[in-house]
């Protein structure tokens, strides 16, 4: 295994590189372990055997080689897993950690994992959980990552002035950087509502009046420009900018206001530009949720959405009920796009929430 690469700060490229490197190292170790185990049983073509089995029962199977962490996890946690019996110390905790890791690796490969220290810490913790119980060396790397990240986050890590020998930043596969750059480009251009505004302050200045619930430009109401969208627009703006006041509007309608001293995206003046209705935008919120059949549960706190949100979530639950079954995992991005944490392929948006129709503090602006 290559030398442990550890972060020195929150540099996004380094974080992406480390995630990729740990994933590859773990996959290689697990694969070698399984090769040895199956080899001892005389089943050297075990990967092909798994592929044939999955295809024969109609399961999707897109993996090209066994050195793929998502394949190993996916196969290990199946009810009819062909490899679970070979993985030592496998139990419910292993399976839970593996499913959590699979979700995050999927997010990572689809450019939906926010490359920050919190995400890296979560991934390192999950790798530690599944690798240490199997006695794999990558667990040492995961533990070193956890220690270093905690030190950086609590401010006790002192970045060396000069690195001797210099530490190489792990390579990031181009497909990962491509999707990440695409997501970042979108975020930089028009961030999620409630997030920090990016770029110059727009020229057109309007005033949102909280008392009259109307929009003015030089003292005259301009809500006629919004037509049927007036009420929806003002409701959205006041959701993220409850005090009201000056709002600056870009030619495409993106609107910015100072909320508690910080320039933030508060809404759109007019219709939000159309996108693919199924496209999932932005980075996934690093929390785990489960659809109960009639509600959404935040797994960490055990709280239910219907008793945690500010506004009614009846419509969201109704839509989810049509697309999900009980115990399905649910993910949400910082744009509020809700989707099933699928194991393969590109995620599809099911519906959308905002900060008042989701768990408090989980989405930007709340």
């Amino acid at each position, binding site marked *: 295994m290559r030398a442990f690469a550890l972060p020195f700060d929150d540099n996004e490229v380094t974080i992406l590189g480390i995630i990729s490197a740990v994933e590859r190292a773990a996959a290689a170790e697990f694969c070698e372990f399984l090769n040895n185990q199956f080899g001892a049983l005389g089943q050297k073509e075990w990967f092909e055997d798994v592929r044939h089995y999955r295809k024969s029962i109609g399961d999707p199977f897109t993996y090209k080689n066994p050195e793929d962490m998502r394949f190993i996890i996916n196969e290990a946690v199946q009810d009819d897993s062909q490899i679970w019996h070979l993985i030592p110390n496998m139990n419910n905790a292993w399976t839970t950690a593996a499913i959590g890791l699979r979700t995050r690796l999927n997010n990572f490969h689809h450019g939906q994992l926010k490359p920050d220290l919190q995400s890296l810490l979560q991934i390192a913790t999950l790798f530690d959980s599944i690798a240490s119980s199997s006695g794999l060396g990558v667990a040492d790397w995961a533990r070193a990552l956890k220690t270093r990240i905690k030190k950086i986050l609590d401010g006790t890590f002192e970045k060396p002035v000069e690195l001797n020998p210099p530490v190489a930043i792990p390579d990031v596969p181009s497909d990962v950087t491509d999707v990440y750059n695409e997501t970042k480009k979108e975020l930089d251009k028009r961030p999620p509502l409630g997030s920090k505004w990016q770029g110059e302050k727009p020229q057109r200045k309007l005033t949102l009046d909280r008392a009259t619930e109307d929009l003015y430009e030089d003292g005259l109401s301009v809500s006629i420009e919004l037509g049927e969208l007036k009420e929806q627009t003002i409701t959205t703006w006041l959701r993220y900018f*409850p*005090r009201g006041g000056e709002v600056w509007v870009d030619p495409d309608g993106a609107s910015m206001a100072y909320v508690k001293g*910080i*320039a933030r995206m508060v809404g759109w003046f007019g219709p939000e530009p159309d996108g693919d209705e199924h496209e999932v935008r932005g980075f996934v919120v690093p929390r785990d949720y489960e659809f109960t059949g009639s509600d959404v549960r935040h797994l960490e706190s055990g709280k239910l959405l219907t008793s945690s949100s500010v506004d009614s979530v009846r419509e969201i639950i109704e839509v989810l009920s049509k697309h999900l079954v009980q115990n399905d995992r649910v993910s949400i991005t910082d744009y509020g796009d809700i989707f099933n944490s699928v194991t393969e392929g590109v995620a599809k948006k099911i519906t959308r929430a905002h900060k008042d129709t989701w768990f408090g503090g989980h989405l930007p602006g709340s």
Partner: protein
Amino acid sequence: MLTENLSISVGRCEVEFIPGTVAALGKPTSQRKGTAEQVSQLRTFRITSSDELNLIVGLYVWEAAAPEVRPIDLLGGLQKHNELKGRGGISLIISRDEKWLVPLRVLKYSATKGYFTLQGASEDELDSILGHGFRELMMGLGAIKFGSREAIDEESNNKRNQLAMTVEPGNLEAIAIAYAVTRAQAVILDFGLDAA
């Protein structure tokens, strides 16, 4: 954080101390009605913020009245910053031990009135406005005592429970930062709106 002794960053604000003292003719706020103008020694500071506030504020040391802090000119900002123009001055009090007593009230948004009013504040509220320990910040800037007016100046009137601090006469840094936090920062953060 003190930078070159000329400006201090606090919360969303930057407080820039304008060098020099000038003589200014005017009336103390406490003696507006009927009295003649008098001369004060005026020292000024500028508060700018991440949301475009640009406010000049003065510390007036009057010949025959208690010193006070008053906004002088709102050079720029949002509509809500107008709240800082007309209200939010601080009348300082000469304490029993000849220090300056600074009452620590805050501008708080009143949902019923629709604007900010000066109201008493707890230490927790001051900490929340600043984002960390207000008392520690003030002590670091030279505050001598910090607590209720009863505790620090033996007051027994209806203001005895009001939070205050004492500073050496003329300690502009501590007074300006207290003003910036309890007035400018409070308005910037819409203090009180969340509870409305």
